[in-house]
């Protein structure tokens, strides 16, 4: 199996990482060699194997329905690259 440039561009779109032609070429090369190595898994028959859900052999623990976090807007917005004190600000979204 080979990963072509079209696929690279599709997954870069899904990953929201821009790639130019040169970068796409390089990624295609890298990914192809990595997947060649990954394809080793195809040797194994796993039809009747249950996939692992977690190595943590415990059950999901519940939290009680209490409000513990107060207004920390200042903290939340502090690290934002652009904000107006009340909101996070992003370039206009065109629907």
């Amino acid at each position, binding site marked *: 199996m080979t*990963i072509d440039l079209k*696929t*690279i561009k*599709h*997954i*870069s779109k*899904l*990953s*929201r*990482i*821009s*790639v130019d032609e040169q970068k796409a070429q390089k*990624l295609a090369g*890298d*990914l192809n*060699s*990595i*997947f060649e*190595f*990954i*394809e*080793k*898994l195809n*040797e*194994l028959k*796993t039809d009747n*194997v*249950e*996939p*692992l*859900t*977690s*190595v*943590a*052999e*415990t059950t*999901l*623990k519940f*939290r009680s329905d209490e409000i513990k976090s107060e207004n*920390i807007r200042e*903290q*939340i917005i*502090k*690290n*934002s*690259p*652009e904000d107006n004190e009340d909101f*996070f600000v*992003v*370039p*206009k*979204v*065109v629907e």
Partner: protein
Amino acid sequence: MMSNITTQSLTSLVDNIKNKELSSEEVTKAFIERSEKSKELNSYISEDFSNAIDKAKKFDQNPNFDLKLPGIPIAVKDLFCTENVRTTAGSKILENFVPTYESTVTQNIWNEGAILLGKLNCDEFAMGSSNETSYYGNVQNPIDKGLVPGGSSGGSAAAVSGQLTPITIGTDTGGSIRQPASFTGTVGLKPTYGSCSRYGIVAFASSLDQAGPMAQNVKDCALLQEVISTYDKKDSTSIDFKRNQYSKELNKDIKGKKIGIPKEYRVDGMPKEIEDLWQKGIQYAKDCGAEIIDISLPNTSYALPTYYIVAPAEASSNLARYDGVKYGFRAKGENLIDMYEKTRSEGFGAEVQRRIMIGTYVLSSGYYDAYYLKAQKVRKLIKNDFDEAYKQIDAILTPSTPSSAFKIGEKKDDPVSMYLNDVFTVPVNLAGLPAISIPAGHDTAGYPLGLQIIGKAFKEQEILDVAYAMEEKIGFKNKITDWWIK
């Protein structure tokens, strides 16, 4: 002031502080002074030295000697979020990120009286085996100039080995504690999945990530493990099990312990010195009174391909939050999508982008079953292998890495050969088991080599005991020449 402060083990520093031979300030200043002289190693991403001295003075004014790490200065991997101290995860995308919160693991350390020295270099988002993917530059292995310290906890391993910090904590997703420990002649423990809280640790691959201690010897490692391993309700995968007083309960007597030797770890092209080291290790274990049993872990060779599906898949999702909106780096964009794409393209380095792409691909429509689901099935088989083996043994002994430390740049452009570094360490993460790497010898160039002891889940005490017993028999001495100090 004692001149040999930085060469002391954690245990003796704690003793010297407790019996007032040393003050926290003296100890802290000694490590800072050595750190200042060791810029060439590039171990630190962010230093917090003046605060550290203030905290040490404060400790000395009102010391509490009941604590386990009284006034001990510690530098930590820059993957742990530290309140008001910049946390970058080795990435440009978090270059200016200052958390307003503290990870549980680091909080546990401060609660026992330790003092933060600074944040240690690592591979970007812990993705790497040589510390070469860090946005903040390579780390030099104190063993020799131009040598990688391993990764991703490369800065941490170099800092312990180079005595810039008495102990440290790293994180291990596929070998990121054990491999650099092996490359630098130090001890590193990856605890059972669920032993140390992941709260406040920048995530790489959630089902594999585990924080763990790194130290100069097994006892120090045990003490730090005792401090950092707590059940934490803030992490849904944290496990509430009975934790030992690992350092207090440390026991050299491992007579009759059954130690398994998995034949599948004898991989093609393994250097003879690694094979020799392993044989030596087996002999040491026997000398300690352990019983050696040949075992089989038949799916071992599938571990690495499995890992390179599972870890990137989780990473591709975990790293989606770095989008230039809430924190971190943002590139200018014409619209939201353009901003995302430029931010992530400029903010992430090549290896991180590569792994995000792999992860996105294996989860994408039409490929999920063939890759991700398949990998989770194989992961189950790998875990079953261990479960089966542990019916007749107590621990497993293997080499930590298939080679000693390599040269900076040597494997940088060949991702697959870089990934092969983790061949012995990755199965442990996939199965969620604890494992420790201890230095056990040198190769012909004088570079350290490590042995790995893998335990049953939650049996950290057992592998610490084996490591402790073997450590004494091995009598390893790290060859640090201080070449970088002018």
